[in-house]
């Protein structure tokens, strides 16, 4: 599964990215740049041509002749282009290249400067002061100032889907045009991730909100300017010549056209025929075949998502930890991952993948496929002839596959799994109403451990649909939220994570790889651990 052979082409390309990144991460001491990228990123590629060391330079000259436009295929349609109101990954694929955040996850997912050049934290850890980059312009030509940060954050807090991320924020104030203070009620060590972890926290232009054009005509500060959107033409972006990294020759592309191809097979074909240059995902069963195809590069890195299922602790007998542990013991995670992801995943009994080096906990208390052990636990709990209504959704087909494998794995225990396969809208409703014995899904795009644990496992929190309540875990999660010392914080989360795993609040299965694929003509692009789609340094070779 892991082809760790990193070919020269990739070393060069990563170096190029590192250089570009290093060039911008210029002065600030608190910035971590991408030097570690090659270390944490496993890239698989089979592109075979030796001609490589293409950097930004030749591409820029080529631009003079014919516009260098990347055609990128998305698997679903952006619902709205308003970054604060969408939860659609397809929207973020586009908006990633249009908007900026205050800071942003670098290639190793640590936060690096973006619209804020630097930041300082007050001694009491309750005030964060951001120094903004000067001379940055929105795509409409207006200069970006501190008021835009205040306006954007206040909008998110008031009506955005991500207002909860500002839970510890008391106020956001513009000290002057280039300084913003964020005042907190309690220390928040993960503030940067909370307020700038992804483009849902984008800094938008106030005037586009006021005239209502934000949903269809986004105006940001990012490398690409939105041009048009139409059912036949897709979404067209063009290079922002005033981009704040224009000095580094970025962006390199003259434009991007996002087209929407909902069928995964068709999307793959379109890449193979050269109709598109890049696709956002590859069906797991096609990854191996595609990797060995000439002319196509598969980018694959361990991702931060996790797949899990949870048993309804408000319903007996799943309120009995022995029953939950029995199920967690009986299943074979490796087989499940292999079945659903064809090896493009890593089995894991906890949430945070090993690739997330800073927060990963190596903890695997359950034996795999231990039927005898599981039977003993069930006998101990006095449970027999167990039947589980297992809620899955075809809108995420891997949940259906996994449920079938789990059903087979639990069969020796005499457990009947009734798979309830509904569309996602119904799934959400049933999950919200607690109409399940078990539900299965994945949780995506996390960086900070708070995102992995708090909402899901803290008593009474909004994502705690399984009804888990452990005062010790609550206390640990509360404490970790405000712990500013990284090592101490990690220790708290490790304890909490172990308890969550032991109690089988969630039964974690695996972390899937993030996979994109592109034609060999595409350079300067890498699949990221947080699944952000950044084309800022991307170019096309003739």
């Amino acid at each position: 599964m892991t082809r760790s052979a990193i070919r020269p082409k990739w070393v060069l390309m990563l170096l190029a990215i590192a250089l570009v990144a290093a060039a911008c991460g210029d002065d600030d001491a608190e910035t971590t740049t991408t030097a570690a990228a090659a270390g944490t990123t496993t890239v698989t590629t089979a592109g075979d041509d030796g001609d490589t060391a293409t950097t930004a330079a030749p591409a820029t000259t080529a631009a003079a002749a014919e516009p260098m436009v990347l055609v990128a295929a998305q698997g679903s349609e952006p619902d709205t282009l308003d970054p604060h109101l969408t939860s659609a990954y397809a929207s973020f694929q586009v908006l990633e290249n249009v908007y900026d955040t205050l800071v942003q996850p670098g290639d190793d997912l640590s936060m690096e400067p973006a619209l804020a050049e630097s930041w300082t934290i007050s001694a009491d850890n309750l005030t964060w002061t951001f120094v903004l980059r000067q001379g940055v312009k929105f795509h409409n030509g207006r200069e970006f100032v501190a008021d835009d940060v205040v306006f954007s954050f206040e909008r998110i807090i008031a009506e955005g889907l991500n207002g909860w991320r500002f839970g510890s924020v008391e106020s956001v104030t513009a000290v002057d045009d280039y300084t913003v203070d964020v005042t907190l009620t309690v220390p928040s060590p993960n503030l940067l991730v909370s307020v700038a972890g992804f483009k849902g926290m984008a800094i938008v232009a106030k005037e586009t909100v006021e005239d209502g054009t934000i949903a269809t005509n986004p105006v940001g500060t990012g490398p690409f300017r939105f041009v048009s959107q139409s059912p036949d033409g897709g979404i067209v972006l063009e290079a922002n010549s005033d981009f704040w990294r224009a000095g580094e020759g970025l962006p390199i592309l003259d434009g991007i056209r996002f087209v929407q191809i909902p069928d995964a097979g068709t999307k793959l074909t379109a890449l193979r025929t050269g109709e598109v240059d890049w696709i956002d995902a590859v069906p797991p069963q096609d990854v191996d075949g595609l990797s060995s195809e000439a002319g196509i590069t598969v980018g694959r890195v361990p991702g931060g998502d996790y797949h899990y299922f949870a048993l309804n602790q408000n319903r007996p007998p799943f309120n009995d930890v022995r029953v939950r542990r029995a199920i967690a013991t009986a299943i074979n995670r490796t087989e499940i991952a292999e079945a659903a992801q064809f090896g493009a995943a890593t089995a894991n009994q906890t949430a945070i993948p090993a690739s997330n080096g800073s927060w990963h906990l190596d903890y695997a208390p359950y034996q795999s496929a231990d039927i005898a052990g599981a039977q003993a636990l069930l006998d101990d709990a006095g449970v027999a002839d167990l039947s589980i209504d297992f809620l899955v959704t075809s809108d995420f087909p891997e949940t259906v596959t996994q449920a079938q494998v789990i059903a087979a794995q639990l069969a020796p225990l005499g457990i009947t799994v009734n798979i309830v396969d509904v569309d996602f809208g119904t799934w959400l409703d049933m999950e919200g109403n607690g109409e399940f014995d078990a539900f299965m899904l994945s949780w995506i795009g996390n960086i900070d451990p708070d995102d992995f644990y708090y909402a899901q496992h803290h008593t009474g929190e909004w994502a705690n649909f399984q009804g888990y309540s452990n005062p010790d875990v609550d206390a640990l999660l509360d404490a970790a939220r405000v712990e500013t010392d990284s090592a101490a914080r990690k220790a708290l989360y490790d304890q909490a994570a172990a308890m969550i795993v032991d109690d089988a609040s969630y039964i974690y299965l695996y972390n899937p790889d993030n996979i994109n694929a592109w034609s060999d003509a595409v350079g300067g692009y890498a699949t990221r651990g947080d699944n952000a789609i950044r084309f800022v340094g991307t170019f096309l070779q003739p």
Partner: protein
Amino acid sequence: MSQFLTKRILQMLVALLGVSIVVFALIHLVPGDPVRVALGTRFDQDLYDMLRERSGLDRPFIEQYFAWLGNALTGDLGLSFRNSQPVTSLVLERLPATITLAFAALFVAIVVALPAGIISAVRSGKPLDYAVSAASQVGISMPDFWAGVMYILLFALTLRWLPSSGYVSFLESPIEWLRHLVLPAITIGLISGSVITRFVRSAVLEALNQDYVRTARAKGLSEWRIIRRHVLPNAWIPIVTVVGLQLGFLMGGLVVVEVIFAWPGLGRLALTAVKDRDFTLLQGAVLYIAFMFLTINLIVDLIYVRLDPRVRVS
């Protein structure tokens, strides 16, 4: 005639009203609501309540319907829940693609079905008839998504003759428009054509067995002339009915094919609207689809009247 038309148009409006009520009722009966889906897994009760109130979803069902209806009567189909765009413009920008595909598919279907069905009927019981029947059975048994995938793999991937997906407007490039249209149109067209073939064969066979065909033969007319002038004019009547039904089916049944060929049509829009529980959008999409269907129905009835003098007089 104008009285007939007026009556039919009134009936159409009543049917559209019925459709809107059914859509409204169904979408409200379906578990989940647009806000719930928009929030996704990041559920938050306060936010949920706030968004529901803002979009008016917390009001009683009947009140919501009449509010919507009031606006609809003035031509305003409301705003999509998901992206606050006017439903009318969302639907209209997708309409050309769907109509293009539906008519192209019907064209393929008719071009295939008419000769095949007529030959099959005229050569009834002969090897050619069996060949046509076997081919149409395969066509009928073939799910559209399967056929579509096969064509893509064959014509787009292996032979590289045609693009695999997407839509180009005719105004932009007539050649590209056609190239993109071919595969999806053939996918549906051949399946519809298989169905129509059976009905054409049946209708022609039925007409061939009529006494007036014997009369025509007794006049010394050639077989070809008999088929053209006597058999087909009678066979048209059931054929037109089936073709009308098929076109109605095409209009709505495009969902799967639009997904496979990334065709930006109404079917896909409606599917998304169902998934998002975006009932204003669904309402708009379905109303347009229903409108097209009812219009086709009306046209079929008018053709009927044109074709069958018995209906014309009585």
